[in-house]
């Protein structure tokens, strides 16, 4: 019928996927390094970097959408030729697997440390991949729909937390001192990089709708993430202070502990609240698996769906285990450089196709 079974998602669902998948992981990992460099003005960094990334995404989505004729994978292969197309897809494949795997590792650790000590990180990762396998197997629409439901719940939750904890903000800590501006700009670059998940978004682009509207959905989604993140960072810094925030592994999540709900039914809300982060991680993992499996299917035609999803899961799990075995997460944060570099790769296909058209 008209809107199901076509392996396409609507513009709103695209926004929802982006918000649901990336709000959690960026909220957990991004502010940490940024607070370290930018200090009390970290929220300004987050906003500047995030806004820049949103604008960048708008342009890229518009450009890519303009050149789409078929699904993204097929367009790339048509435009870039067999081999170059293959390389670009392979790079995206590796990128998505690595990014998804590393984020999964971070989640798995968080589950082990803050949520459930008796669940080991390895096991948490396995369980999440299992769920992602189920979701990805059901296809793109399933990912889109569950994101749409989850994104609304997550945003409601977050707005609720913000509204409640805003009165307890200590605004004096938020005023940046003049010598911090350099750090703030550096932080903005970091935040730009950490939010640049270009490898993910374009594969999900629907190709039959108005390009501007789609690009705007992408822009809007990243803007929402940016605003939430910078507000969250500001809250975390003002509640904990800069030094303590640095020492916290997940400042935004732990900040929830600090908020006092009026007449709260549950103590230690942050553990319950971190459920939203786990949800986000489920969606990110499912999205990663889905994207990599689709790339596999477009490269090796006639591949069994179960087999391709399974392979995607295995690759993702491999990178996740690599990150877990490292102990620290310094290497994980190294991926943000890689993030920005992906812009280049993603630009290749639309650029070539535009050049060809002009001729």
């Amino acid at each position, binding site marked *: 019928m008209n809107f*199901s*079974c076509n392996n396409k998602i609507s513009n709103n669902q695209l926004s929802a996927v982006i918000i649901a998948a990336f709000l959690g992981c960026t909220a957990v990992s991004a502010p940490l390094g940024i607070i370290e460099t930018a200090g009390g003005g970290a929220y300004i960094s987050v906003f500047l970097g995030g806004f820049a990334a949103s604008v960048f995404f708008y342009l890229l989505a518009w450009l890519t959408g303009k050149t789409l004729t078929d699904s993204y994978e097929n367009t790339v292969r048509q435009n870039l030729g067999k081999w170059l197309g293959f390389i670009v897809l392979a790079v995206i494949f590796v990128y998505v697997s690595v990014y998804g795997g590393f984020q999964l590792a971070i989640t798995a650790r968080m*589950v082990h440390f803050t949520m459930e000590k008796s*669940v080991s990180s390895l096991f948490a990762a396995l*369980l999440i991949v299992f769920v992602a396998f189920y979701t990805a197997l059901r296809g793109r629409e*399933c990912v889109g729909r*569950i994101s*749409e439901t989850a994104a609304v719940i997550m945003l409601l939750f977050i707005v609720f937390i913000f509204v409640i904890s805003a009165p307890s903000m200590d605004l004096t800590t938020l005023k940046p001192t003049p010598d911090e501006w350099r750090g703030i700009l550096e932080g903005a670059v970091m935040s730009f990089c950490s939010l640049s998940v270009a490898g993910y978004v374009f594969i999900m682009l629907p190709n039959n709708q108005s390009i501007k509207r789609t690009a705007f959905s992408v822009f809007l989604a990243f803007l929402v993430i940016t605003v939430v993140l910078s507000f969250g960072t500001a809250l975390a810094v003002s509640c904990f202070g800069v030094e303590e925030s640095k020492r916290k592994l997940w400042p935004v999540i732990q900040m929830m502990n600090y908020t006092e709900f009026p007449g709260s039914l549950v103590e230690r809300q942050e553990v*319950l609240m971190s459920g939203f982060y786990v949800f986000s991680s489920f969606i990110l993992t499912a999205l990663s698996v889905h994207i990599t499996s689709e790339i596999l299917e477009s490269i090796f035609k006639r591949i069994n769906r179960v087999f391709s999803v399974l392979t995607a899961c295995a690759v993702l799990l491999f990178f996740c285990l690599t990150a877990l075995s490292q102990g620290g997460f310094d290497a994980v944060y190294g991926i943000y450089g890689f993030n920005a570099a992906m812009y280049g790769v993603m630009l290749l296909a639309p650029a070539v196709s535009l050049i060809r058209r002009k001729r």
Partner: protein
Amino acid sequence: MELYKELNKNKEYIKNTLYGSDDIVFKEFENNGTKCFLIYADNIVRGTTIEDGILTNIMVRGEKNFDAFQMQNNLISVGETKLVQSFEEVLDAVLLGDTALLVENDNNAIIISTKGWPSRGIPEAKTEIVVQGPKDAFTELGSMNTVLIRRRIRDTALKVRRFKCGRRSKTDIAVMYLKDVAKDELVENVISQIKSLNVDCILDSGYLEQLIEKRYSSPFPQLQLTERPDKAASAIYEGRVAVVVDNSPFVILVPATLNIFFQSAEDYYERWEIMSFMRILRFFAAVLSVTLPGLYIALTVYRPDLIPTSLALKIASGRAYVPFPAIAEVLIMETAFELLREAGVRLPSPVSSAFGIVGGIVIGSAAVEAGIVGPVVVIIAALSGICSFALPNPAFVSALRIVKYLIIFMSAFWGLFGFYTSVFLVLAHLSSLESYGVPYLYPFCGGSVNNYTDFKDSILRVPLRKMRKRPIFAKAGQKIRMLFKKKEEGGK
């Protein structure tokens, strides 16, 4: 197989085929010397019709030697008759309660409609009870059910497509829809889906429902069963398709989304404020009935620090002498509750309410006294049970009951993480479901297709005047169902 010209041959063949069926009546008689042969099944025909409309007319008034065609037109005073030429049609008709009349030297048989099945009149609704609103319900008689719907939709666009399903049962199926509102592909899809079935019998609409569901392995019902004619009619008005199955007091409505299982007929008959409140309450109850036992295990066993101190201490001291782990405790109470529910269904109704109360109180308090379960678990089990009764659709409640156990086990294994994982799994499963082209979670996802108007009838039930558009099920050009003049609105 074609009928013979010779009556004897026909008689012999039919008697052989129906040999051993003692409920079939064969009657031979003459009309002015022309031999006739009458066949009908005892007790499912209306005897007076046969006597007054057929036998009297032919035996008394028959003056000439009529053949079958003439008899049909001149002698038989029954409204619905037709001529057939094959044995199969004759036998089918007889088994359905019609009467077949064969005439000497004629290879046509007259099928006379004499259906007069035993039926129990129009009953009151049993499972979907409302305080305010019509009380009538469907019966086992398929034709009566179509009448009940037709009475509510006096529109020429209401189409009834009849056919039979089941190789042996030959159950009458009627597919009802509004021609200009329901999507054509939906109607064709449903009909072809039912026609493609190659099964022995269709005993009930629940039987058919499971056979035409797309994802039969899911515990969640993807089609809606209702016993209320008003509900069926309103569904048809919305552009959905009703499938009436003979011998079943439940009508299938296609498609069905999760949202629909939270709607009760009453929602539209009473004021919108209270009904919006009830809707919210129902969604809340659904969440609670599924998650409460799992959450209890996850919190008490793995994260007691999340429970307020005094409550945690109460739970702990209540469980001090309980010999079982929390999971066993929960399972004991849940099983006891399920048993009570199952046993309550079998008991004669005057006893069952007393039994429910006695069983609940005795088992609950005795189990706590005996130290088998803690007092909090009794509350948890009872609360989750009560919540499940707050939902209007029994099939959906059954699905939730199954899902509840998944959550209980995963929470018991992996604590709060298991709880979140299981909740996500359920959500993922729900979002992968579709019911005849409509996402199961509609309008909570994909709502943009219909400009989010369907939210007006989901968590809230906005005033009827605001629900001017038909839901997603209707054809694209048929979205408006209410029109008000501007003046009337302004005059308020």
